[in-house]
């Protein structure tokens, strides 16, 4: 009970503080907005780290009624959301200073941006902690509304197009998921949200076909928000046109949070629909996403668009890991979640400096950045090398673990196919890496000076973390932490 009380206090601090700040910045002087937001964000992140550590320390799963769950998966995601949230806030100032237009005029622009970002951040914290499918659905839809506003925040035609597609397509997809939830609700023995909690979903009383249909509807609906192929159309547009700090948060935090809800649903429903359907659907989405992403990774794309297609690839790899199951693949999933979040957000934050340095890179692939700005080139290189799965970086470790898990659990064809697609993706991103750093696409194009110290500092910090994650990843499969994730989830 004390455990739960401590957890609740920390959760309230972590989730409600950003919401409070979102309101508070409208009543404090505008000149103090950034300082107050950063101070509050630091407190929230310290709370999030503390909460995650307490979850990791404890054995077993803790719940508060049917609303909140504290398990290792929630701990991992709270940590990721916290880290990416504060870095996004720190890099937002540069974005806002360079913004010449917006959905609202300047006196309100900065406050509106931070307000929406803070509410989005709070919802992101809450999604992995949601103790039942209904609450998780509502929170995910909340993230759609807030993040769509952020995607289209600049008010530029391309941003409006991306934001509109994101809003309409994911809302339609989430509508399909809600239909599945409503069907699950009809088979629940308990009324209200309690019937949709992760622990009671496994005791649904509906017939097998009904439950299977409901389950498929929920997973397919959520897939549209994760951005798995073939329901991924909005993803490359939204991630490439969003403000850079938001792109980092969308890719590194939002997608994994929604993916976690899909994972929990699959796990919770397995006693009712069997383990095979869930695993097969996830493996199918994984292979399809990889197959859809790889051809684009071979194309010369603008930097942010390349990163966006890489998100499609990596969400596919994580889906494969969850689908394969077992300690090896799940350890791979954990390493992948952390490695992808760090490398992808670094790449997106660096895109701000890249756009200042070489404005053409907004629509064209960058070239020769390693020569024109070595520190920026190094930052882009670290991000892309990690995302390509370059050894010994963590995504190499995770991909090996996931594929080994696939072979270990008898998914021979899927594993071989995935290995081939991952290899093709690696080659495509390696080409892009060499081109970004060394090739000179733009001939006599002049580059602009850009201050690279902040992003290069972050790149050094990120590299340290990435190497630690790689090292930890090697010991993870045999750890009790992974066994807790494999055997039990909130």
């Amino acid at each position, binding site marked *: 009970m004390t455990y739960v009380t401590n957890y609740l206090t920390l959760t309230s601090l972590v989730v409600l503080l950003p919401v409070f700040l979102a309101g508070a910045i409208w009543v404090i002087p505008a000149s103090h907005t950034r300082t107050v937001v950063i101070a509050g964000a630091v407190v929230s992140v310290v709370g999030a780290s503390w909460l995650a550590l307490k979850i990791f320390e404890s054995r077993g799963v803790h719940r508060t009624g049917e609303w909140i769950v504290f398990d290792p998966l929630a701990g991992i995601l709270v940590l990721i959301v916290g880290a990416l949230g504060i870095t996004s806030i720190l890099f937002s100032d540069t974005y806002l200073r360079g913004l010449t237009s917006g*959905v609202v005029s300047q006196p309100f622009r900065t406050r509106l941006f931070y307000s929406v970002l803070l509410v989005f951040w709070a919802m992101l914290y809450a999604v992995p902690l949601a103790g039942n499918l*209904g609450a998780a*659905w*509502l929170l995910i*839809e*909340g993230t*759609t*509304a807030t993040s*769509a*506003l952020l995607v*289209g925040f600049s*008010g530029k*035609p*391309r941003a*409006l*197009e*991306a*934001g*509109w*597609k994101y*809003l*309409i397509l994911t*809302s*339609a997809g989430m*509508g*399909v998921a*809600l*239909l599945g*939830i*409503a*069907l699950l*609700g*009809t088979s*629940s*023995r308990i*009324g*209200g*949200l309690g*019937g949709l909690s992760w622990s009671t979903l496994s005791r649904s009383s509906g*017939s097998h*076909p*009904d439950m299977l*249909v409901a389950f498929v509807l929920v997973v397919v609906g959520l897939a549209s928000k994760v951005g798995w192929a073939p329901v991924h159309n909005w993803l*490359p*547009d939204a991630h*490439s*046109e969003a403000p850079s700090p938001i792109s980092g948060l969308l890719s590194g935090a939002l997608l994994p949070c929604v993916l976690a809800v899909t994972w929990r649903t699959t796990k919770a429903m397995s006693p009712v629909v069997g383990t095979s359907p869930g695993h097969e659907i996830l493996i199918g989405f994984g292979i399809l996403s990889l197959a859809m992403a790889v051809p*684009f990774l071979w*194309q010369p*794309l603008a930097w942010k*668009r390349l990163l966006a297609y890489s998100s499609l690839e990596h969400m596919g790899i994580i889906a494969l890991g969850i689908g394969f199951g077992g300690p090896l693949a799940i350890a791979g999933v954990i390493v992948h979640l952390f490695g992808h979040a760090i490398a992808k957000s670094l790449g997106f934050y660096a895109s701000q400096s890249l756009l200042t340095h070489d404005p053409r890179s907004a629509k064209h692939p960058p070239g020769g950045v390693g020569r024109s700005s070595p520190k920026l080139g190094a930052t882009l290189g670290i991000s892309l090398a990690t995302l390509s799965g370059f050894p010994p970086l963590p995504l190499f470790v995770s991909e090996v673990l996931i594929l080994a898990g696939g072979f270990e659990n008898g998914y021979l064809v899927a594993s071989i196919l995935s290995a081939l697609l991952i290899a093709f993706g690696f080659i495509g991103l390696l080409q892009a890496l060499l081109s970004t750093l060394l090739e000179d696409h733009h001939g006599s194009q002049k580059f602009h000076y850009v201050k690279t110290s902040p992003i290069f500092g972050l790149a050094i910090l990120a590299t340290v973390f990435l190497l630690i994650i790689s090292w930890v990843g090697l010991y993870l499969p045999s750890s009790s932490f992974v066994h807790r994730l494999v055997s039990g989830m909130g």
Partner: protein
Amino acid sequence: MQGLSQWLMLVCGLSTVAVRRRSLAVGLATCQALALAGIAIYEANTIDESVAAGALVVRAIALAGLLTVLVSRTRETIPVRASVPPSIRSGLAVGLALILIWLIPVANHSNFDTLQVSFGLIAFGMVIIATRRATLFQILGIIFIENAIALAALGHSSYSSLVIELGVTLDLALIAMVASVFHDRIFAEFGTGDVAMLSDLRD
């Protein structure tokens, strides 16, 4: 009463698939939302259910107001023509509805009729989103899908409808508000609410 209201919801949905004028479509969507609220009021036996029904009434009125303001603020100089003729749109909508009903095995379900109507409305919403070029119609498509789900949630007694209705209402209010902001900005930027103009992002 319930059967009549469900038929009314279907007729409003299918008519919206076919109609050209935005103001007429807003009227039909309002009528559908009110029919849904009517079913909720008729079936309300507890305080929770009455609150949920009240929330649906408020939602219908608020949506009607919001959409009417949107239409009046963004007058199209040239009507945005859909990419598919009305007869084919209607055929697609009915066809998709029949396929959904056939695909999803709810024949043994106690609320078979209600679920069938819900699937029909979802199909109509999807066809509207896929075939209409006007941004306002795409918002209506989302609203139809949400109405369908609220109807499905109303159709059984074992499940507390308050939660789903309040949740859907809140969610829809948020999504509709954000979509309205986008509609407004798209109109200001392009001079029309035609999604055909949103085609710059291609690989």
